[in-house]
């Protein structure tokens, strides 16, 4: 569900842990060794980018291109699996069986998105275990939006409408990303995200048109989720360090501010239909620009949450780490079983208990 490209500006150089791993693909590694600027592999890469063709796993690519993709895809994958937590928080309390089924399917989709994305990262030579270790060690990030708590049932709707809505705006251009496996994974992910967004909107619409208590619950959720959702597009363009190179490589297609503006313009009429108020007194239509003006974003909050001081940072990563540790014996058992089968000769199930 989440976006992938927050945090660029504030983290330049902070990702040394997710460096390139070219050793696993023999053709790529051989090409890498031979490549210096201006030589054939680099020229071929640049030509493909220029022609809007896809870069595939076995193609030569610059180390920094690979590193950028691994960092971005890993962060996206981590966001999917961490993002399961705030919604799973309401799975056991969903107020109708229909809503429960929708939410369960959604959280399951997120686990599935995590799987596609870890697989996409693997095509770049970095496996899931390594990426999870980095997540658990705090060396790779996930979308900061999931460091906010889901306090009421309406938050499930707000996440669908606003958080998934912002994610879609970030992610639809990624379907045209220059790296093939990532672009293809995003096509499927975006289709599912758009269901989630509509479901969230419909949930909020029901609440907003329900009892006064339900309406208040919906408004409160929007009040809390609006600004963090705007921050999902990342820092303002003039502070976004990675953006220029990512745009040149066609990993990224639009600037942070451009996408943020698009999101605001889409949300304003939708909020009117909901009968809910976006919590920004400066929000108004600007006839000259043909866009909405909106208030200043509190970037100090964004930076604090990014730094680990959000309401749920410790809880989210602690829970993830705990699940991983609790599951170690299960993964060990599966590996041991597979190893016994690989040995083969003994035949299935014959070992002594």
């Amino acid at each position, binding site marked *: 569900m989440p976006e992938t490209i927050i945090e660029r500006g504030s983290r330049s150089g902070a990702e040394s842990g997710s460096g390139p791993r070219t050793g696993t693909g023999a053709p790529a590694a051989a090409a890498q060794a031979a490549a210096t600027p201006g030589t054939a592999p680099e020229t071929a890469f640049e030509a493909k980018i220029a022609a809007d063709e896809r870069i595939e796993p076995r193609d030569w690519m610059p180390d920094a291109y690979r590193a950028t993709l691994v960092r971005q895809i890993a962060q996206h994958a981590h966001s999917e699996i961490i993002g*399961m937590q705030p919604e799973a928080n309401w799975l056991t309390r*969903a107020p109708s*069986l229909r809503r429960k089924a929708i939410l369960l399917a959604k959280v*399951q989709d997120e686990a599935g998105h995590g799987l596609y994305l870890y697989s996409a990262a693997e095509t770049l030579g970095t496996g899931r275990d390594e990426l999870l270790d980095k997540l658990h060690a705090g060396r790779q990030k996930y979308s900061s939006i999931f460091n906010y708590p889901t306090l009421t049932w309406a938050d499930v709707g707000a996440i669908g409408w606003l958080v998934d809505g912002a994610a879609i705006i970030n992610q639809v251009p990624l379907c045209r990303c220059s790296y093939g496996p990532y672009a293809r994974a995003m096509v499927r992910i975006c289709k599912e995200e758009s269901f989630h967004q509509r479901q969230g909107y419909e949930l909020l619409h029901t609440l907003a048109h329900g009892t006064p208590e339900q309406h208040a619950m919906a408004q409160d959720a929007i009040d809390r989720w609006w600004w963090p959702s705007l921050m999902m597009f990342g820092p303002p363009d003039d502070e976004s360090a990675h953006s220029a190179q990512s745009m040149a490589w066609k990993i990224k297609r639009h600037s942070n501010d451009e996408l943020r503006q698009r999101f605001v313009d889409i949300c304003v009429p939708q909020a009117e239909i909901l009968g809910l108020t976006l919590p920004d007194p400066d929000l108004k239509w600007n006839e000259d620009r043909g866009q909405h003006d909106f208030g200043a974003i509190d970037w100090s909050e964004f930076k604090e949450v990014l730094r680990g001081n959000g309401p749920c940072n410790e809880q989210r990563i602690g829970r993830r780490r705990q699940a991983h540790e609790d599951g170690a014996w299960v993964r*060990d058992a599966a590996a*041991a*079983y597979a190893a016994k089968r690989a040995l083969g000769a003994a035949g299935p199930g014959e070992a002594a208990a």
Partner: protein
Amino acid sequence: MSAAPDPATADLATAGALALGDDALVLSHRLAEWTGHAPVLEEDVALANIALDLLGQARTLLSLVGDEDELAFLREERAFRNVQLVEQPNGDFAHTIARQLYFSVYQELLYGQLAAGGEAAPLAPLAAKAVKEVAYHRDHAEQWTLRLGDGTETSHARMRAGLDGLWRYTGELFRPVEGLAVDWAALEAAWLETVGGVLERATLTLPEGPRATGWSAGAGRAGVHTEPFGRMLAEMQHLHRSHPGASW
């Protein structure tokens, strides 16, 4: 959602649908509790998927009885007709898999009989659809039982403990349910054979010990549950009950 129960149709098949619907509803809830912290990401997908299948079955079955949400969210603990097995807390992954093995083998055999049987016609179409889903659930439980039983010493011991701990709740599965045209003796024999066969391949054996004590044999079907179930319902029903009459 269907109308409130009509006394004329609140017949024996309805009692059967309520029992099976509650089984599916409660187990679905327990499995959903795993979401987001399964031992491996594939299991987050698998357990949620099984929970979703069961929730779908529950909704179909409960709708034969009355309003699905009234039945799920407004009944008291003593009115639920699920077996005690499905309400048992998840425990560790082995405990969950043991519960899945016991229940999915039962459910597959039971739905198989219902799908084939003419007398239980009201439930036959549902059973025919559900039995296909449940075959996957059984396969999932079986595959994990093999891995945990024949994996490491730790996993073997944990699987053993899960099977043993839940054994006392399995007797209830074969107590006849009013309104279901099922050969219960044949069902139990087939269940013992199937579960026993899986356990043997997993280097495990069927537990020994009683499984028909007064507190676990037929008690859930009669509305007598275990302590953790009340807490589960409190969590599940709280929001719905906090807003009487609201639509969601």
